[in-house]
C-alpha cells in the first residue's frame, strides 16, 4: 500500500472515529500521562494495521479490535513496569480534558468500566457503542452466546450499581 493512501485512510479514521480512540483510552488508562501514552500506542497500532484492513468488516469494528488489543497489551506491559516507572509529576500534557465537558455521570460510568476485568471492559465499550453480538464476538474471539451471557450479566450489574449509588449525582 502506498504511504499516501495509508496516510489518507489514517487521517480519515482519526477524524471520524476520534471519540472511539478516547473511549478506549479512558477505559484502560486512568491518569493523563498514561492516557497520552496509550493514545499514542493505539494510534501507532492502528496506523500499522491499515495495510492489513481488507474491508471485510466495518472500519469501526476493525479500529475497535486494534484499539482494544493494543490497550490490553499496553495494560499488561504497564502492570509489569509499574513499579519501576513512576508518572512524572508536573509534566505538561498534550491532551487536556475540557473542564466544561466534565460530566460526573459519565465519570461514574467510566469508573465502573475501569473496575471490570479486561474482557468485560472491552465487551462493555463495544456494547455501549451499539455493536452487535456478532461483531463483538468476531472482535474479541468469544462465541456469540458467551457474549450474550456476559453482556446480560454486565447490564444487570451496572443497573444494580447505579441504583445502589446515591451520591454520584445520577
Amino acid at each position: 500500500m502506498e504511504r499516501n493512501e495509508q496516510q489518507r485512510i489514517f487521517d480519515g479514521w482519526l477524524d471520524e472515529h476520534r471519540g472511539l480512540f478516547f473511549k478506549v483510552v479512558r477505559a484502560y488508562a486512568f491518569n493523563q500521562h498514561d492516557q497520552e501514552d496509550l493514545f499514542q500506542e493505539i494510534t501507532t497500532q492502528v496506523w500499522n494495521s491499515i495495510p492489513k484492513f481488507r474491508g471485510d468488516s466495518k472500519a469501526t469494528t476493525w479500529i475497535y479490535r486494534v484499539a482494544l488489543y493494543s490497550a490490553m497489551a499496553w495494560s499488561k506491559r504497564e502492570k509489569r513496569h509499574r513499579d519501576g516507572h513512576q508518572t512524572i509529576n508536573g509534566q505538561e500534557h498534550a491532551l487536556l480534558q475540557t473542564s466544561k465537558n466534565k460530566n460526573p455521570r459519565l465519570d461514574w460510568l467510566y469508573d465502573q468500566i475501569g473496575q471490570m476485568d479486561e474482557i468485560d471492559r472491552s465487551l462493555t465499550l463495544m456494547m455501549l457503542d451499539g455493536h452487535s453480538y456478532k461483531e463483538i464476538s468476531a472482535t474479541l474471539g468469544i462465541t456469540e452466546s458467551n457474549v450474550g451471557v456476559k453482556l446480560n450479566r454486565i447490564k444487570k450489574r451496572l443497573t444494580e450499581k447505579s441504583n445502589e449509588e446515591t451520591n454520584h449525582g445520577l
Partner: protein
Amino acid sequence: MDFEAIKVIWDSQNEKPLYALNETGLHAVLREKSRRFGRLMFRQELETYGASLFVITVILFILVADYLGLVAKVSPAVALTKWDVVALLVAIVCWAQYAILIYSGRKRQHQRERKFTSSLRDDLERDIEQTRYQIAARKNIVRGFIPPHIGSGLVSLVIFRAMSQEWMIIPLMTAMVVALAIETRSQRRLVKREMLPRLQALESLRDKLAKSES
C-alpha cells in the same frame, strides 16, 4: 436506573469534544520525544563510528607491525604479501568510506535544520525533516552496509591466509552474510515500526495545527 438511561449517559460524550489540544504541553511532549529519538539515532551513529575506528585501528596496527618486522619476529612463518597489504588498504577505504558517508549525511542534515527556530511549528518541521532523512538514509541500507562487510571480509581473509587457515573464511563469510541480513532486517523494522508511524503522527499533528490556525 435502567440500562437505556446508562446508554444515554454514554452517548452524551459524543455531543461535545472531550479533549482539547494543549499547545504548551504538546510542545513539551514533542521535545521529549525528539530527545528520545535523537538519542537512539546518536547511539546508532556512535556504533558506526566506533566500529569503523576499531577496524581501521586493528588494520593499521597489523600494517605497522608488519612494516617494522614485528609480525615476522613473533611468528616467522607469518608474512604479509604485497597483495595482503593492498587488501588491508582497501579494507581501510571501505570502512572509512562508510563512516564518512554517515558523517557527511548527518552534517548536511544539521545544516538544513539550522533554519528552524524553537517554536512549536518549527520544532515540528525539524522533526519531520529529521525523520524523513533517517528513513531515506535507510532506503538503500543493503548497499550502504556492503562496503564495511567487504572490508571486514578482506581483513579476515588476510589474517586467515597468513595463519594458513584459509578454510575459516567460509564459515566467517557465511556468518557475515547472515549478520548483514539480520542488521538490514532490523533497520527496516525500525523504519516500519518506529519511523513511519512517527512521521505520520508528526505530519498529522502539523495538519491539525494548520487547520486550528485557519
